[in-house]
């Protein structure tokens, strides 16, 4: 067992699961989407991105790309949330909630691709 692979797999999966947890539920209802979960999803996704740094293989490059997409989507979601909550003065309404959740949905897609890549890599790995 390779500890590096365990940590790598852990963070990639955790990023996807947290993202999924935030995304699931009625898209326009702010009560079923916890902002802390979104925050945790971004933090873990950032860690996963850094873990993917410095891999020179082709699959490593795709891994890094998917992570960067997920980061971008999550940061956009958080920015929308900050706008709704702090700047517009209206609080989270149906429209802003929907856009935050849909942006995180895009990040979820990227995270799922990451997981698929991880699984593919594991399946095609032959020792010796």
């Amino acid at each position: 067992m390779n500890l590096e692979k365990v940590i790598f797999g852990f963070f990639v999966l955790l990023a996807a699961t947290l993202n999924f947890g935030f995304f699931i539920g009625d898209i326009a209802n702010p009560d079923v989407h916890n902002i802390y979960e979104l925050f945790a999803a971004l933090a873990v996704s950032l860690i996963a991105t850094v873990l993917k740094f410095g891999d020179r293989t082709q699959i490593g490059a795709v891994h890094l790309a998917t992570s960067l997409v997920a980061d971008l989507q999550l940061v956009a979601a958080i920015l929308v949330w900050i706008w709704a909550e702090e700047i517009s003065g209206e609080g989270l309404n149906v429209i802003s909630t929907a856009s935050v959740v849909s942006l995180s949905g895009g990040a979820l897609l990227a995270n799922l691709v990451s997981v698929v890549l991880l699984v593919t890599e594991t399946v095609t790995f032959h020792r010796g």
Partner: protein
Amino acid sequence: MSNPLLIFWAQLFGCREPVSHVPARAHLESSSQASSTVFMVMRRMRAPLITLIVIFSVSVVGLTLIPGIGPDGRPARISPFESFYFMSYTATTIGFGELPWPFTPGQRLWVTFSIYLSVVGWAYAIGSLLTLLQDRSFRQALALQRFTRKVARLREPFLLVAGYGRAGELLAKAFDALGQQLVVIDESSDRVDALDLASFHADIPGLVADAANPHHLSAAGLDHPFCTGVLALTNDDETNLAVTMTAALLRPDLPVVSRTVSATVAERMQAFGTPAVVNPFDRFGEHLRLALNAPASYQLLTWLEAGPGAELPERGRPPTDGRWVICGYGRFGREVIADLRAGGLEVTIIEPAKLGESEPGVIVGDASEPRVLAQADLASAVGLVAGTDNDTTNLSMLAAARRLNPQLFLAARQNRPTSAALFEAMRVDALLVPTEVVAHEVYAQISTPMLWRFIKEMPARGDQWAADLIQQLRHNCGRELPALWKVKLDTEQAPALGGWLAEGKVTLGDLLRSPEDRKRQLRVVPLLLLRDGTAVLTPDGDTVLAGNDELLFAGHGSERRELESTLVVDSTAAYVLFDQHIPSSWVWRKLSRKKPTPSRADDRGAATTNHR
């Protein structure tokens, strides 16, 4: 194309010469080597970056969870965004104070904790980054990347020089004066630093690397389309052989000049294509023989090989017959003895070590001992060659010999550059500095192929001819060697002459008249005329020129510009060659065509006779 607009037009829309395809047989991947630097940084920054992210997340979330009291006195928590904002300015030590409202003791406790945590995180991240920047392998990788990029961006023909020792430095100066770009590889970082410190006109890229490694040669532009030649000039024969080999296998189209002092290595080099091998010992023997037989030819040869700006060397008066004493029967001694014997001279050899086969005229013993020198009977000899590989021995031998026989012709081999002042003070008649011989030889071969052709054919013309030519050069250009340049009389370099060349009406003497006043001749000496592969040395003024003739001239830059204006500007050419005034602008030329002009050929004939 005398009209600037036309030239502009041609440069804008004329078909540019396409970059020639490189016929490299194998492409070496050197860029991947360089880009690995980035990956190395990213890999090593993983842990510090993750630490930072974790610390930030924990502090931000923690601060939002601690209960606080709002401005209205009711319990209120800080929102995640406010918390992130607070943590950002606190962790980076900017510190705007407690925003958006004063903290409760519980919040302050958490902030104290997170301040220490974030300072540790930042210190760790910045510390790792700085360590990485100091890292030797990282710096090397960075230098290689910068060098590779610099070489790849070169858009002018350049020479690849492996080995920037004394010979490399001399050559770099000579080529830089000619405006020839170079790329340098040397194993010693001191030498590459010296390259950076030297005041060259061009920015010469230098790399600290082993030239024997094909990857480094490739990074230095071996497979670059603008690479025009490879010079292997390191002190190590093995490395030179490796460079020659790599160049011959990867770029068989490139000329290679390689330095060696060993005949066997020279043979091994010849196995790879046709590199020009320069053996300084061999060349010195040939030069010495030339100096004995034809002092003026030798003087001209050394002057031309020394490069632009060189002072005219003194003409030696070596003894033409008599017995020579040679100390040191190593590789150098053998070459010189072979050349002297070929010249029909008697030779006495002094060699410190006992040789396997005893040859006639070999005295065994340390040449710096007076007893051994006395045995060689210097009083009746005419010349001495101090050719051991030890400068101290050579110098003491020269001093002793001069005391015994002040009339001796002294030739010496200088091994270390630091001994130069001593040998100069000794006033030896012929001095071999191997590195200088290599530099001059390579310069003559590479700077213009026509100069090399000239030097090859020159000794056959005899001593008197050489003395006359030196006189002519001195009269026209002074004691310092002027720049040598070549002109090809084709449509590109001599567009103004086109039709007249084909008619066979242009003579060299007319061409070299001054555009200011055609009664004055330009102070330019034609050295060589190359037509269809046959060379004419110092063509005279009556020579009729034809299209595609190549000429090698010696003369100062100002005279060169005047000649170039004759070659390019139609009206100047008409005046210089035929004393004919034609309008220089297109409109006037069109207008003046209306009046009947006499046939050019007749007019020209009359004009030239008038002025002769």
